[in-house]
């Protein structure tokens, strides 16, 4: 049985027919063609597949596509209409990532954090990204970049991925 659903992905509307067992991760990558959410463990351990669903970070490998019907999905491709968010800018300047496989997920988790907590402590940042594994960096440059972005944020907050 196929189910007709509609996803909003990075501001675009996608009417789709999916099977009940199709994961949001699979549908985003294979049907919509958005590749930044990465498969890493298929069981919610690593966070590489993180997306924002109606503004909240979720692991797209643990969500069925039918569950996301009618909701707004944001990935790093859709974080900014033009250019980079302040967070991405600091990530770039501080060379926060190495291999970069975890980067899309961590950027989204940190974006969600900053949307709700404009002045996080170091521990807040560590806690917010603790569900996203990184094997390269030792996390320190990532945390530094999030704190740097928070410290210099303009009064108008980021949209936190919510359009």
């Amino acid at each position: 049985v196929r189910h007709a659903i509609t996803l909003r992905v990075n501001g675009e509307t996608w009417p789709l027919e999916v099977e009940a067992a199709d994961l949001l991760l699979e549908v985003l990558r294979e049907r919509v063609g958005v590749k930044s959410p990465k498969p890493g463990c298929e069981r919610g351990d690593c966070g590489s597949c993180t997306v924002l669903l109606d503004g909240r970070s979720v692991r797209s490998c643990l969500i069925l596509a039918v569950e996301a019907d009618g909701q707004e999905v944001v990935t790093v491709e859709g974080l900014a209409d033009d250019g980079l968010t302040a967070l991405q800018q600091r990530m770039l300047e501080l060379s926060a990532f190495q291999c970069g496989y975890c980067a899309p997920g961590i950027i989204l988790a940190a974006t969600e954090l900053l949307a709700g907590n404009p002045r996080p402590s170091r521990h807040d940042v560590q806690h917010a990204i603790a569900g996203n594994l990184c094997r390269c960096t030792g996390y320190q440059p990532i945390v530094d970049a999030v704190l740097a972005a928070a410290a210099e944020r303009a009064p108008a907050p980021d949209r936190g991925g919510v359009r």
Partner: protein
Amino acid sequence: VTSHAYVGRSVPRIDGLDKITGAARFVDDLEFGPDLLHAEVVASPHAHARILAIDTYQAEHVPGVVKVVTGKDFQRPFGLYMQDRHVFAQDRVRFVGEQVAAVIARTHRAAVRAARLVEVAYEPLPAVLDVAAALCDDAVRLHPDLGDYPHVPWFFPRAGTNIAHWRKLRKGDVEAGFAAADVVLEDTYTVPRYAHAALEPHAVVARMDHAGRLTVWSASQSPYTQRNLFAEALDLPHQQIRVVTPYVGGGFGGKAGVTMEILGAALATTVRGHPVKVHWSREQEFTNTYQRQGLVASLEVGARRDGTITALRHVLHWDAGAYVEYGANVVNAAGISATGPYRIANVHLDSVCCYTNLPPGGPYRGFGYSEFTFGLESHLDRLARQLGMDPVELRRRNAIAEGDELPYGARMNPSGLMEAIDRAAAAIDWGTEEPAPAPNVRVGKGFATFWKAPAMPPNAGSAAFLKFNEDASINITVSGMEIGQGYLTAMAQIAAEVLGVPPEKIRVETPDTDRNAYEWQTVASHVTWGCGNAVLAAAEQARTSILDTVHRVHGFAVTDLFLEDEHIRCRTDPAFAVPLRDLVIGGLEDPTDGTFKGGPVVGAGSFMPEFASTRSDPETGQGGKPNVHYTVGAAGIVLEVDVETGKVHVRKVALAVDAGKAINPAAVEGQITGGILQGLATVLYEDLRFDDAGRMLNPTFTDYKIPTALDVPDEVIPLIVEVPQPDGPFGARGIGEHTMIPAAPLVANAIEDAVGIRITAMPITAERLFLALEEEAEEPTTAS
């Protein structure tokens, strides 16, 4: 001191934008169209068994299945240093998870469903699950044909045993050395197996087109080595194979050589025209790629009262797994360097590569050095205690220096070891006690040194192509791999320095063996050095052609011309400045007659060490120059032990490494910060566990715990030492692997400092430390 415009500066990564925007494409992100097929393997449930029959009938009739392939379809052996493996198991399986067959189907789900329906009849054989079992006289032989396997000349397999390689090293007279010692200390240290746990699982897509040409897209550190081994295993000419490697989501050695990629390449030849994808699940990533080998290390070290080490005997028994085509070289590397960075007159090393019925061992960041350094640096701390000597002082007393004799007889390269020791010790206020924050907490400090050389064939080469574009931007094509370490950026900085073009105007492309210049592999922490030299040569060739053109048109002596800020300038005529963009494609107009001189500027560079040799006496290891150089360093740690729970908290860790010249200091610091955490994880959190049938018990991130952002030291202090490597680009040598080597003994030494308990088996988890504390409380030991 020469000042540089771009080398030695922490310029932002040139791949940074790709990675933070989602633009970076990894193998699984590539699109192949509607004719893409998916393959799933049939894995052995047995650690050791004879294959009696394979029935594929049911699987072949699952809707969507295109083909089922088994070992009879691919009978040629292959391997990097020893040909001991096949595409699929042949007459027997040798580890749980080994591929016996594969199903190719139109969807991944159909392939998985059908793979479960392949019926394999096995006759189980006794399984060899550790080195002691492997070495028993009556142990079942995993590879009865070991004596016939082709291998590199520096391996010494023992036919008729489970010993795939035995590296011996004998220097001086150890018995005399022990006789001259005032203190001799003996003990055994054990190190379990570990997983690389890169976030990107292995993936490969391959297509053999209707003209017979094979293209393989793989997540690999080793595109050219893969092409070479595909040619060997599939009996294809090299020019008929193309290997393309987009960005790789972490390697750490796990994506070096060839593991599951052979499946994609082989299967593609059976379904011409179709691309075939093989994508490892996380469980397969744990069970069927290279693992870091387990080690049982017996150490005996003697020293005089003044701290001088008089003799060292180090016997290393490696649990190398079912196939050792790569792992035996880890054994070899350790077997010529397991003295650590010390000047020791009398040395006896045995490094023994044992086949076991566990997943194949292979390269993992540190390449044997992490493993033996746990025992060695633990042991030296204990020796210092017995001598009543400061452990750091003991290391200073014996530290190897430039020109000292190495274990195999050649001479040590220039080294900043003493500076590294001093700076790491100072960074943790070595020698001062720190107050405990609570009654249940003890604070301890630990120290360790390390060294490591690239382990490569003596003739491992690197090459680079460089071309200018109309706007004086540059493309460089090399075949080293960006696995996160910042290699592309370092190569851009080297070319930038020579050509006066800023790194952000230089693209360095990921490998494609049809187009990019040769690179042996991105392993051994050698590409900054080896490929850096090739890029340097390519850039110098391009510079020479630019200056020659200016000389021919304007008459200035080439020696007076130089490149700076995208211009050609002249020392004798400060007013002279030609923008590079006016010359690098269209040449330079000759003002006398309107003709143009020069043309599109390109450069090619090649590098291979011409001084390395593996020729040595098999009985003593003396002779030759198997290692091009060693990178050295030292590290210190301050940690807290909660004596009620056994939990360790790292307050501060400082690591000093001699980079020769840090091409990009921020990247070096990034390697230190990431590498030390990966090392701390091996001692505090991780280990691969197997049951008594050889099945892995923890092949998920739920049960194999790699550190999260909450599991980091309070403070990491990266320290860069720069004693130049004379044959390195701008003096650089590699540091990537080294940053995780000292972590385990650092922790073990600091724990003894904190609570007086010496633990000789990794990992030192909270559980193990808690039990040791309980035992100590019940019956306090008097032993040291």
